[in-house]
């Protein structure tokens, strides 16, 4: 299927690559279908593009590449799903790139958990005092 993107014009994606966010992403309740766009296999950053609205796109990253301990904190209990098993789930987090890209941050308080087999995903709120919406990727700035 063809989708319109914010940054890359109209592109073709496989229909089975569409991921359903039943509740949308916080702040974007109207967009429920997204696709992950990746242009280079080894690029840690990927694009999460809303399928039905080209204007809505996020840069996402596997947070464990930068914060190796993070996955152990994203437990079912900490995201309000005490009865679920999310051990093997795929987690991505949204990246914010400010005016000065050195100050790039990752939102570790709002992880997105994907089930690629079922083509579904949801942004959760992580209740853990260690993590906030803005974690710097580059810790020291000169």
């Amino acid at each position, binding site marked *: 299927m063809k989708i319109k993107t*914010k940054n890359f014009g109209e592109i073709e994606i496989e229909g089975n690559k569409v991921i359903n966010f039943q509740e949308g*992403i916080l702040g974007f309740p109207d967009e429920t279908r997204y696709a992950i766009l990746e242009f280079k296999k080894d690029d840690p950053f990927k694009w999460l593009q809303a399928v039905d609205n080209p204007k809505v796109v996020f840069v996402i990253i596997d947070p464990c590449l930068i914060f190796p301990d993070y996955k152990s904190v994203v437990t079912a209990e900490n995201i309000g799903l005490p009865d679920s098993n999310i051990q093997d789930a795929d987690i991505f987090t949204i990246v914010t790139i400010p005016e000065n890209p050195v100050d790039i941050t990752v939102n570790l308080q709002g992880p997105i958990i994907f089930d690629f087999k079922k083509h579904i995903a949801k*942004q959760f709120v992580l209740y853990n005092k260690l993590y906030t919406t803005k974690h710097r990727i580059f810790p020291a700035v000169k």
Partner: protein
Amino acid sequence: MLILTRKLGESVNINDDIKITIKEIKGKQVKLGIDAPKNATIHREEIYLKIQEENKLAASRSLPHNLRKAINILKKAKKGK
């Protein structure tokens, strides 16, 4: 807004499946117990709003040239190690 007065241990029911109970009152803090269906989404408001705000900012800044700059800095940081 509907405003109800409740005592410690009393509850409020919303529809047939949501029940909010006053569990503890300590000075200016109130502990609530919430029974709701599994698919109900319940958040502390200030954290919920913070994530909404961050998402909106992230979406407004999601441009390839911004990302490219960040990647270049990342590469330089790696080389420096």
